[in-house]
């Protein structure tokens, strides 16, 4: 019985593929635009916001959960159409890798100025746990504040997974001459960082973690450490010694190469879409602070910000 349904399904699906593709091309295809959802709030809300914008143009939209690193390969193969939050230092590598294989295009950059850097929660500054912060030189005198059970008396930097920036932080620790006082621990994912931050906050403990802005942590206050400023060529990969902070980063949009042709109107809007730091923060806060569901948050944002997104569709 089962195999009959399956064969039937295959025949039908095949037939649809054969006939479905002979549609007219003047306007956007009615085939759904596939938007990925990852596991952090601003991204999911923005997925529904962008989906709502596409729907206002008469497009069909479909949402698919996907891993935030593996998604670029899926865009390349056309299983997913777009990605609307490509963070420079976290996903830049996966994005450019897929782009170099062919099939992914760069669909422009958001206005949001992003920063991805090591930092401390606001209370670390307010309670003066490490006098002199956010200047990085203050770290020399307070390794004990940031020590953990497994850091062997040294201070610990909690970095994101190794897949995000490889050995950038361990190199920086040594290049700044902090190697004897600090160790870098790679967390398994963003969840692990949030859990550590929440736990540290309860105790008022000192903690240094990798973080980024705009992010939901902006609401409670998060201070990025001021390292020696980034200059071209200061990183080891570019010939420098690595003793510099992160550059102000970009937040890009990616799309499958067929998207401009299959959905010209939607692509035009998508390439114009540009959210600011505040707007991204608003979207995340509707879920993380106001506890709305992601869909409701997107509906509310779209209703309240027509003047922001309507121009994208023209």
């Amino acid at each position: 019985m089962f195999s009959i349904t399956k064969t039937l399904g295959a025949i039908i699906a095949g037939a649809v593929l054969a006939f479905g593709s002979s549609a007219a091309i003047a306007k956007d295809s009615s085939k759904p635009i596939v938007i990925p959802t990852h596991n952090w709030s601003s991204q999911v809300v923005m997925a529904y916001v962008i989906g709502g914008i596409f729907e206002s143009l008469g497009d069909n939209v479909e949402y698919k959960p996907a891993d935030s690193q593996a998604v670029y390969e899926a865009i390349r193969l056309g299983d997913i159409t777009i990605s609307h939050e490509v963070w420079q230092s976290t996903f830049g590598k996966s994005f450019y890798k897929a782009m170099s294989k062919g099939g992914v295009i760069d669909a422009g950059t958001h206005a949001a100025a992003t920063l991805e850097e090591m930092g401390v929660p606001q209370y670390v500054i307010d309670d003066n746990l490490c006098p002199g912060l956010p200047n990085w030189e203050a770290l020399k005198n307070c390794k004990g504040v940031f020590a953990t059970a497994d850091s062997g008396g040294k201070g610990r930097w909690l970095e994101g997974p190794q897949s995000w920036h490889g050995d950038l932080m361990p190199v920086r620790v040594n290049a700044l001459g902090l190697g004897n006082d600090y160790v870098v621990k790679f967390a398994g994912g963003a969840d692990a960082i949030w859990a550590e931050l929440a736990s540290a906050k309860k105790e008022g403990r000192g903690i240094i973690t990798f973080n980024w802005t705009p992010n939901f942590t902006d609401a409670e206050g998060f201070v990025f450490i001021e390292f020696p400023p980034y200059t071209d060529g200061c990183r080891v990969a570019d010939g420098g010694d690595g003793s510099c902070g992160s550059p102000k980063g970009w937040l890009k949009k990616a799309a499958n190469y067929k998207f401009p042709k299959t959905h010209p109107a939607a692509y035009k809007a998508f390439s114009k879409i540009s959210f600011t730091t505040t707007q991204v923060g608003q979207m995340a806060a509707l879920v993380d602070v106001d506890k709305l569901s992601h869909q409701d948050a997107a509906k509310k944002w779209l209703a309240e910000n027509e003047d922001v997104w309507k121009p994208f569709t023209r």
Partner: protein
Amino acid sequence: MNHLTGHLARHPKLVQFAALLAVFFVLYFSIDPSENNILWRLPAFLAAVPEMLNNSVEFIMFEWLPIETYNVEIEDYETSALMIEITRAISRSVLFCIEFIREILIGGQKTIVAFTSWDFVSENKWARWPALPWTVVAGVAITLGYALSGRWLAILVGCATSYIAVFGQWEPAMETLSFVLIAAPLSVVLGVFLGVVAFKSQKFETVLMPLLNVAQTMPHFSYLVPVTVFFGVGDHAGAIATVIFATPPMIRLTLLGLKGVSPEVLEAGMMNGCNKVQLMFKVLIPTARHDILVGVNQVIMQCLAMAVIASFIGAKGLGFNLLLALNQLRIGQALELGICIVLIAVVLEKLSLGWANKQIDYFADLSFVERHKYPLIMGGILVAGVVLASIGGLIFKDGINYFYLIPHNKGLTTELFWQSGVDWIVDNCYSSLQVFNVGLIVNVLVPMKNAYLGMPVVATFVLVMGIAYIVGGLRSALVVGGLLLFIASTEWWDRALITAYMSTFGVIISATIGLISGSLCAQNKFATKGILLVCDTFQTFPSFIYLIPVIMLFGVTDTSVLIAVIIYATIPATRYTVEGLSNVPQSLQDAGTMSGVSRFQRWIQIELPLAFPHIMLGINQTVVFALFMVIIGAMIGTDDLGQLILKSLSDEFGIGNGLMLGLCVAFIGLAVDQILRTWANERKKALGVA
């Protein structure tokens, strides 16, 4: 002294072990740890294999036998390849089936699209299948439960469905259900089919067995990338990954059941003139029913255990929402989602069990209404549910019709309770646990890790192969040696040692806890039933949920990973101990009691030795569970093989790296399996219970 030599003479293996340890320590301390010393670390012969593997898979998928097609939408020719067209056709048919079931349950338009086109659906807004009211789905499931197994199952199904609906998880639960309803039958059919073929053909069995061993010990993360490359991203990919994970135990148990059919039964079938097909379906499979049912039970548990991991590659439903809740640190919400997963597993398992145990009454002489009682009742429920939903539409004015569909996260919630519970524990226990945490890391974990990393590769080979030789002879030693050689020839030997250290620690603690709690619970019938229920629950309960509270208490450290490992790996140790002890024949226990042994002596001298082979199989499973969880521990933060497996999701040679790393983990498991299984079989023979 005399006593000691006598003791050693009776146990020659003890002498061998002592000698082995002596050699091991000499090697350990005498070999110079330098990178060029081949006795310290083997050169990475296989370092280029991941890239080759990756390139060949990509060649077969994207370049081999290219097909030119004209794509009307982009007005251009596209090159595709044969393989990708084939695998995507499979994807589409699996997806069609999932969408079909999903849309019966919660509505949608994909099925209609499949028969028409997106254009048609866009132009005709009425062309949308409506969702069934949740009361109808619940009512039909309850009736099904009653029809298959009576009142108690009906009550259970009723409670489970109401919980899911009332707590506002109906939509994600139905999404998960729809993909399990495809993945589980597919695994069962495939498993029984391959099991039957292996039963018929000795050659096929010899080829299949090692593949099954690898499939069952390979961590699921390592085949996620290959699955997405072959089949794309989405519910179908999740279902296919689930089938890969759930089929092996089904094959094994089918084969076990068929082999256990006594020749008399077979002969009776042949004497009655059965042909081959009849013999298989009317005689062999029904007789092997018990084992096949255990297989079905395993398949259902495995399918739901995959619910979360499948969402990494696009499966919608409870798993995805669970990851989202965890990212917001909403542990209470994640817990409620986790309970939904367990409930679906329990309901499906009991329903399938009831269905399989249902005997057809060939001689009943029933009227039309009696014969079609249940379909008629279900029809009635459908009408009643629709009427109720329309009434609901009139009563509830705030836009949510609670009699039709309670939207996601708009139902009851106990989140606050759990959240404050977790907060309370973190607030009150953090400081005292911190002392324990530091002590454990400084005094046990770091020294243990360094001891493992300080092992010269030759010493490791001598120790492990030596144990295999003493336990199982030359053949075992060679098998284990071969498995280790593979790992040692990759560039990940040090990481494998770290994986081994964490698994060893986890297994020792888990086995101890399992042995003790299992022994205690086996003393009492109610406790036995209770502990088995706990085991079932924890096996399907998504382990991701306890990662977050563990991090809050112990930070991103090995302690956190190990606690998660111990929670998960204690399940099989406990289960097999309980089962092993409950199966010790009553007569032997009575004989012991009559000889005047105390309760404790009976446990040590009679029960444990007799249950030993079965407990060993449990320890074997504990090792596999521990390895799996150490790999998932990469989500907390580790520096072992798991970190690289997780990283392979975004690697340049992701397919090759993922598969090779997965094989390394699988081979650690198989090496241990080889030793423990041989040992258990030896003991079985010695005890005469083989």
